[in-house]
């Protein structure tokens, strides 16, 4: 029998899972993350730490910056990769996503349509990175983990991300279509 037509293959590997199933699994994984590392799940703060290590390696001194003098950021900077088990989850996300797309046999190298698209992606990435740092996290570290921790900053983030998405949507229609 052809595997591609197998009902279980289709259900579990080929077709997207329902949002509610994803939500429950994410919730359970965040509990596991909190229990095993002592911190709720976050994604982007590790990007700042990695970039600081790279900057140190080429002779810079990010440790003198205000951001890296905050207690937890300073600890992450001197702790090294092995002390920072959660940052491995960022690699896990990338490899997991690759595995999922390979198992569904949907892997594809996508073409770049225009330099406008590249510029928009780079600019969007920079703004999101900056925003994530000044709001103590991205939609994972601040929204997902913040709301789960009963912290008000997660809810405030949630309200303002709507405004950001609204403005982003307007810009997208104006410049990318």
């Amino acid at each position, binding site marked *: 029998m052809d595997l591609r037509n197998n009902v279980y293959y289709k259900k579990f590997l080929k077709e*997207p899972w329902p949002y509610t199933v994803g939500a429950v699994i994410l919730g359970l994984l965040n509990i596991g993350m909190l229990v095993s590392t002592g911190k709720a799940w976050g994604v982007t703060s590790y990007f700042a730490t990695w970039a600081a290590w790279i900057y140190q390696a080429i002779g810079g001194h990010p440790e003198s910056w205000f951001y890296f003098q905050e207690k937890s950021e300073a600890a992450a900077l001197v702790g090294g990769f092995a002390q920072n088990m959660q940052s491995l989850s960022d690699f896990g996300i990338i490899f997991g996503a690759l595995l999922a*797309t390979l198992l569904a*046999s*949907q*892997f*594809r190298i*996508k*073409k*770049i*349509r225009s330099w406008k*698209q590249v510029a928009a992606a780079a600019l969007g990435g920079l703004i999101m990175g900056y925003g994530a740092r000044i709001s103590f996290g991205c939609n994972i570290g601040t929204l997902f983990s913040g709301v789960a921790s009963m912290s008000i900053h997660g809810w405030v983030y949630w309200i303002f991300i709507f405004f950001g998405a609204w403005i982003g*949507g307007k810009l*997208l*229609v104006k410049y*990318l*279509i």
Partner: protein
Amino acid sequence: MSAIRLECLGEACPIPLIKAQKKMAALRVGEVMIVETDHSCALKNVPEWASKEGYHVEVTEVDAGLWEIYIKKTK
């Protein structure tokens, strides 16, 4: 029967959906539009919009990670 092709390769959400909506508005009743996409999220929002509008929709995976969404303007 001729169909209008809308090539959206390399375009991420929500661009395929917005392009499809714009193109569909220009189509006459009875005409078919084929949206070519390699973005799996478009498989969710494009057919969802089309069936909400009451159009006839079909999706085929033509290659690994490459889909064609057939939408017939029924009204």
